[in-house]
Every structure is written in C-alpha cells, then in structure tokens.
C-alpha cells in the first residue's frame, strides 16, 4: 500500500492535456462535477483546437482543460497550473510554460515514443522524460496505455476501444490524489454507456485501476485535501456560460409568458446555446436552424413580428452577416435579442479562442445611425442574468438588444447559487388591442413614455398596418422622405436607447471605494481576472478599485460620477482598445487602455504587474 502523506491545500490548478481525441474535455468536466459536488468553489477553462480531430500527436491537435478549485473564493481558472497531466509529448510541449516551477507532471510514457516525438517535432535524442530537462518539476511517468490494455485484456474489446478508456485511468488517479469520491463519474459512465455494457464495464474498470494505481504504487509521496469552500448558503449546481445563457433565455420566456423563437446558424462558440434550447421544446421554446446567418436573424424578425420573444445567436463573423437585418429590426422597432458569443477575429480568426473585439461591431457595426442596447455577461453564471436582462429590455422597450458573451465564459463553468423563478424580475408585455370600425385609425408609431411603439400582432382585428426598412413618419408609420422627420426619427431611436438607462441598475463597485488613485474599469468576461488582481493589489495596500460594466449601451447613469472620483482609470480589455475609446469619447477622461490580444484570457498576475507599472 502507498505510504503517501496527506497535505491540506487552499486551492489547486490542474490542467489535463492530450490529443483532441484523448477525451481530456470529458476528464476535466468529470473532475469538475466531483469538485463541485464536494463543495469546492471552482472555475474552469477548456482550451481546444478548432479541428474536431486535428492530426494526431501534433501540437495543433492538443486539447486542454484547466480547473481551479479551492476552499476559498475562486474567480478564475488560474494563471498557472500546479498539476499538468499530459497524454503525449505534444501536450507537454504546448503546456509546460503554464506549469509552476516545481509543479507535478503526470505523463503517459506511451505518448513519448519515437512516433509521437516526430509528430511533435521533438528531436529523437531530447525525450523530456529521460533527458533531465524536467528536473525542476515533480515528474511522474506512467505507461497509461500499457496499464489500460493490461486491465482490459479480457474485455473482448478491440485495441482502439480499449485505448479510448485511457482518460478514465487518469481521472481515477487524480480522484485518488485529491481524495475525491468517484460516485458521480461512476453514475455518469453507467448512464452514458447503458446500451453498451462491455464499454461501460471497461470504463469503470479502468477508472478503478487509476485509483488503485495511486493507492498501491510508491510513486506518490503526497495526497491532498482541499476543503469545501465557505460559500453563501443555499442550493448550488455547476453551470457553463452557454448553458446559463440558454436557461436565462428560457426563464425570460416563461416569466414573460412569451413563446421563445431562436433562429440561428451553427457557429463556434455559440452553437451550444442552440443545442441546449433545442432540448426544451416543452417550455414552448422553438428553435430554427436556418440556412445561413441572414436567414437566422430574418426568421427571428418574422417571429417577433408575429409576437414571439425572438432571439438570434451567433459569433462575430455571423454578426457581420446579420448587420443589415439588425438595422431593419431597429427601424421596425420590434423586440429582438442578438446573442454574440465572441471569439478571436477578424474574419474566421481563432474560432475556439476568446476575445472582446466585437464591442465596436455591436455599437457601430451597421449603416446609418443605428443604435442598439448592449449588455455583456461577466462570468459563466452571469450569462444567465444578462441573457434574462436582454430579453426583459427587448420586450419592454420594443428594441433590439445585443447580449455579449465570449468563448471564455461560454465554455467555462462555475458553481451557481441558482435563483428561484419566483424571485426573477417580472417582464411585462402588452399587445395593442383590437379595434372596431368606429375607433380612430391605428397609429403603429405612436410612442409611450419609454418611446416604444405598440406591438400590433398580425391577426388582430383593426390593426392592419405596414412596417418596413424605409424611413417612417413618426406616429403614422407611413413612408416619409421629409428631411426633418428623418432627423427626428434618428434622434428618437437614439433617445429610446438612452432612456433604457432609467430602467437598469446603477453601477456598483466590485471592490474598493468609489474614489481613489486608480480604477480598474472592465467589462465582460475579464471579470474574474480583474477581481483577483484587485484583491491582490489592495492586499498590498494600493488604493485601487474595480468596477465591472455589464450594461454598456446605455451606460448606468452614475458611471460618469464614478469615473470622476479617480486620478487614473485603466480599461483592461482583450482587444486593441474598444471600450476605452467609448469611455474617452463620452466622459472626456484620459482613460488608459491595457490590451491583450492573444486569444487568451488575462492572467491576474499580468494585470497586477501592469497596474503597479502604471502607479509607479
């Protein structure tokens, strides 16, 4: 039996890396669920190539999954990993720079044979497992392939099927290392393979083999415990950003009583919203996979005209194609939610990598003066809140609303103290009532105090009217080329967006006082990294505050006041400086941009160093 010693840790970052066919995403997700059920706080970061099965063994084919779990508040998936599991040499090469010095490497030696070395462009005489180059790390070499094959020699499965169980060995071993119950994974395997008992048995056997390997070998001097985190009391679940966005949309549909129509075209990293929504038809959720991005938004506009909570979802390249139709929706003044799960661009860019470079596209990316409301989620869980808010504003203000997410929070996961539906804010929708012969003529562009026009559904007696992309005369909605009317309508559409500010919360500080030396002003998915960085900076006695924007157009009414309270405002963004331009323009302050454009999220340490440099 192993003579390992237990050590208690506050938090740990583990990165699972292997070939995209090695099942690392599944392994990571399974460990995530177990950690969540155990009561740790956590954040995850899947990092995978765009190719479904990139050439085996190559650097391009490396797929990674990072989890940061702990007994304290966890805001990010971690800057560096403490433990790196690598299934082949390419995975090591791609991820070693992200491992802390002295960290644990668990390497599958079979993935370091001459063929894998050649595929990863590593010279034959430089096998890192044997050439001493990993001396600074705690290296554990295991022939996972061989052990798995031995364990399943009598399974009756072919070599290919047997090798597919390798990831379960790794999972079992990591479960052992961190004293985790394997119950949730055992249940998962039983359910996933219930129609193929041989494969089910094989996976269970290899999972157990991984655990036993830790238990019986002398390889591991330590086992670790990470106590449950002190979190707010309540019932939790684990959730990914895209899933949370989908649930936010469904909730808005149920709470408003409006059937939901989601017109979309598959695109990374937004497709999972479609996958999730398409499973919930019993909530009156209608999904339509259109022939292209343009048809996707146009079908949603048709559904909105007909009286649905209409939503279209995509990522940057798809949003570019939708631009003209967003303009139409703005002219029609119908409710529409446009979901953009941002990825790194331009053009096809880096489809599986994250970026925040579509803010200007949302703000200005259409012909003519075409303002829309823009909201952005700051974390996986916040995707629920802001997707819900996007629906609420679209429906109550008869206006197109952008909901911005990004690849990082869309695929990342965290524990969620989920709400009860009775506690969600009400969404009130009214349709124009039918009219008789003696009533005045229906005026489709007569506005209320929000400046929104009536929603007049086809099929309602006496409301026959025409809408369209040509400029409308205010009130009547008739085509008008009158110069003054056009100017008035442009200003009204802008004012209509601006008035949304009366119906959204004021900006709050995430950390630090409302005045001080330096404000870190972030938006969207950088929240966790900025939050951690601010805590570190404040811990070192620096007078730094952090505010994070989720309502970007219009801004909360008190934002200008907050900005005035700081000597310096720094705007960190995963782009080449977009929010900062808007802030400078709107508030005439010398806000400092801090940009990273690598397809990767901020590391907290990068932010800490940058802020110190600015303060120096």
């Amino acid at each position: 039996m192993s003579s390992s010693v237990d050590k208690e840790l506050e938090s740990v970052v583990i990165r699972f890396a292997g070939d995209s066919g090695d099942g690392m995403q599944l392994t990571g997700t399974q460990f995530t669920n177990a950690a969540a059920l155990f009561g740790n706080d956590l954040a995850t970061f899947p990092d995978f190539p765009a190719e479904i099965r990139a050439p085996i063994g190559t650097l391009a084919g490396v797929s990674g999954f990072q989890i940061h779990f702990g007994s304290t508040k966890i805001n990010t998936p971690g800057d560096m990993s403490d433990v790196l599991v690598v299934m082949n040499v390419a995975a090591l090469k791609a991820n070693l720079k992200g491992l802390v010095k002295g960290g644990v490497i668990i390497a599958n030696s079979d993935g370091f044979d001459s063929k894998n070395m050649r595929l990863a462009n590593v010279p034959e005489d430089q096998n890192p497992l044997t050439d001493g180059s990993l001396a600074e790390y705690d290296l554990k070499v295991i022939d996972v392939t061989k052990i798995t094959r031995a364990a399943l020699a009598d399974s009756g499965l072919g070599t290919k099927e047997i090798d597919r169980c390798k990831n379960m060995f790794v999972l079992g071993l990591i479960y052992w290392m961190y004293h985790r119950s394997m119950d949730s994974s055992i249940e998962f395997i039983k359910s996933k393979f219930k129609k193929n008992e041989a494969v089910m048995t094989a996976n269970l056997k290899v999972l157990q083999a991984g655990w036993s390997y830790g238990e019986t070998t002398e390889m591991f001097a330590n086992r670790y415990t990470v106590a449950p985190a002190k979190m707010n009391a309540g019932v939790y679940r684990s959730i990914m950003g895209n899933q949370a966005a989908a649930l936010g949309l469904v909730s808005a549909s149920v709470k408003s009583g409006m059937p939901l129509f989601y017109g979309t075209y598959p695109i990374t990293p937004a497709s999972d919203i479609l996958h999730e929504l398409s499973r919930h038809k019993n909530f009156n959720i209608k999904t339509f996979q259109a022939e292209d991005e343009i048809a996707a938004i146009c079908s949603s506009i048709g559904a909105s005209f007909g009286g649905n909570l209409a939503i279209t979802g995509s990522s940057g390249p798809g949003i570019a194609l939708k631009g003209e139709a967003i303009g139409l929706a703005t002219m029609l003044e119908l409710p529409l939610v446009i979901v953009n799960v941002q990825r790194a661009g331009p053009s096809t860019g880096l489809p599986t990598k994250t970026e925040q470079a579509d803010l200007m596209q949302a703000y200005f990316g259409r012909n003519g003066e075409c303002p829309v409301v823009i909201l952005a989620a700051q974390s996986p869980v916040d995707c629920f809140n802001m997707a819900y808010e996007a629906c609420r504003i679209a429906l109550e203000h008869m206006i197109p609303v952008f909901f911005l997410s990004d690849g990082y929070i869309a695929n990342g996961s965290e524990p969620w103290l989920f709400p009860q539906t009775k506690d969600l804010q009400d969404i009130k929708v009214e349709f124009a009532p039918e009219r008789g012969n003696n009533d005045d003529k229906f005026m489709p562009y007569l506005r209320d105090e929000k400046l929104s026009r009536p929603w007049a559904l086809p099929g309602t007696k006496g409301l026959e009217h025409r809408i369209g992309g040509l400029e409308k005369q205010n009130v009547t909605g008739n085509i008008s080329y009158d110069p003054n009317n056009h100017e008035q309508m442009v200003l009204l559409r802008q004012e209509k967006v601006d008035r949304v500010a009366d119906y959204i919360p004021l900006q709050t500080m995430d950390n630090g006082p409302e005045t001080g030396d330096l404000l870190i002003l972030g938006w969207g998915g950088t929240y966790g990294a900025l939050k951690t960085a601010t805590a570190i900076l404040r811990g070192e006695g620096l007078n730094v505050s952090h505010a994070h924007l989720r309502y970007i157009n219009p801004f909360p009414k008190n934002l200008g006041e907050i900005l005035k309270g700081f000597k310096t405002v720094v705007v960190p963004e995963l782009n080449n400086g977009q929010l900062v331009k808007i802030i400078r323009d709107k508030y005439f302050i010398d806000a400092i941009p801090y940009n990273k454009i690598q397809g990767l999220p901020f590391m907290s340490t990068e932010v800490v160093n940058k802020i110190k440099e600015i303060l120096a």
Partner: protein
Amino acid sequence: METTEKLTSKDFASDQEVRWCPGCGDYSILKQVQTVLPDLGRPKEEFVFISGIGCSSRFPYYMDTFGMHSIHGRATAIATGLKATRPELSVWIITGDGDSMSIGGNHFIHMLRRNPDVNVLLFNNQIYGLTKGQYSPTSEQGKVTKSSPIGSVDYPFNPIALALGADATFVARTLDRDPKHQQAVIKRGYEHKGTSMVEIYQNCNVFNDGAFEVYTEKGSKKENILLMENGKPLIFGANDDKGIMLDGFKPIIVNLADVSANDLWIHDETDLVKATILSRFYDDPTHPDHKPRPFGVFYVNSNKNTFDELFNNQMDAAMAKGLGDLDKLIAGNETWVVN
C-alpha cells in the same frame, strides 16, 4: 367589419398612393390580388404580405393588410419565421427576379425545400427596375443594359426549373396581361397546402418594355403560349392546330391535322418528370424550332407535409404534458447544498 359583410377589393386597398411608373405591369398584379382576396373568405387581419426590395416589393404598402417591406432578398426568411410561429395566418411573399433569384437565391431554394404553407408571387420582369436598368439573373444572355453596354455574358436562371429542382410543391406561371388567368393561378396557389411558387411575367415598360410581348400580343401569343390545363391535351397554335407529344422523354410538336388530340401529351400536374420537361420549354421565342412557353400550373405535390405542420407537431407533442417546470430545469440534475 361585421362578418356578414362580404369584403370587396376596395377593402384591401390601403390609403397610400401607388407609386409605380404609369403603365407598369405591377398595377395589374395588385388589382388581381385585391380581386382574389375577398373571395377567399378570410378576415383581412389574417393576411400578411412580406416583401424584399425592388419595385415589386413596394406592394405591401398598397394592401390594407398586415405587411412588411423588409430587406433585399430576405422576405422568404422572414415569412418562414412568421409562418412557423403563427401558422394560422395567410402569409404571402412578394418578390422580384433580382430579389428572389439573385440576392435572395439561397433563402428562396431553402424555403422551397422546407415547404412552409406560404404563397410566393415572383414578379419577373427580367431587369433591375428600381436601380434603373441593369441586367437581372433572368435577363437573356447578350442583354444590353446600362451595366452591360455590349451585352450581358451571364446565362439566365429559369425560375420554374429552379423551383422544381428545389423540390417546390406548387409551381406555376402566369402573366400580368391576362387578369383571368392570373386570378385563377393565384387562387390555386393560395389553396395549395405548402409553398406555392407563382412566377408572373411582368412588363417593365421603362427599362425592358416588350420583354414578353410575344406572349401577350394578339398576333403572336397563340403561337407562342402553351396553356396547361390538368387532364387536358397540350394544344396551342393560332388555330389550336398544334400539340405536344412525347417521344420517350423527348417532347415533339405535332400538327393536329396528322395526330388525334387523344394521342397528345395529357397534362398531369402531379407528374414531376413531365413537369420538369415542361419547365425546360424555355427557348428563345425567335428561334425557328422553339417550343411554346407554358403557362398555368406545372406541378402540384399535395402529399408533402408543410414545414409549419412538422415544426408545430414537434412543439405540440413536447407541450402535450403542459409547460415544463422551470425551477427543475434551472436546478438541473446535480445539486449540492451549502449550509
């Protein structure tokens, strides 16, 4: 309006001044639609006209129904979203040859394959009118226009053949100058369950005047038009003296002096292969061996479920047990409690 009071064509005319060029074929189509609609026995609030961009697409503004003048080529997609979610409405798509065959070609074919129960009126004038006279995707090769001063090199689309190729379930052609035929075809299109695609030859008297005169003028039309009627032999000619026979899959023109009408090709709207052959009667009418241009209903398939039916059948089945429990959905399958 009381239900006892029958609607008239005037009830379908909006208060907006019609702004097509005087003499435009669009006027006739507007009039025929306004004539047909009162006979359909539906209250007018159930009608929705959706158009794209182009001269024809101004149409909805002149109808006192629900309407949307949308963006170029996308009426088909908008109509699909509306019909899917509001299947009880009567949804009409007004489009032109540029709108549906060029910029909106993709949506056009995909709508046809899905087969929502909507009615398409494709105004084909073989020219871009609103942008003042460039060649269109249905203009004949060699067409001299503002954008093709020495003649267009593009081969034209054949909208009927394209529609059949996209598995349309109702395909017909009519002309602006024949009100009775137009009304009959539009009405049949309305009655068809599924997408009805009606191509209407429409004269643009400003930029492409006379494009179809060989099919509309007294002296030439009987020689050049083949009026298809279901179950009837295919006969044409100045004195109804010619007919079409099939030699295998090859259509041939015969003289009725030599052949009995009983031996001619009997038009069968449900026969896709024969409809496909007829769709290819698309010769240049100045060619000496040209076949007459068919008008009427090429093809009807009443056996294909509509998109809106299939879409809503899934919804109804899913909703049969009532609305799902949102709190359960949000909670998911695995939760844990923190005290």
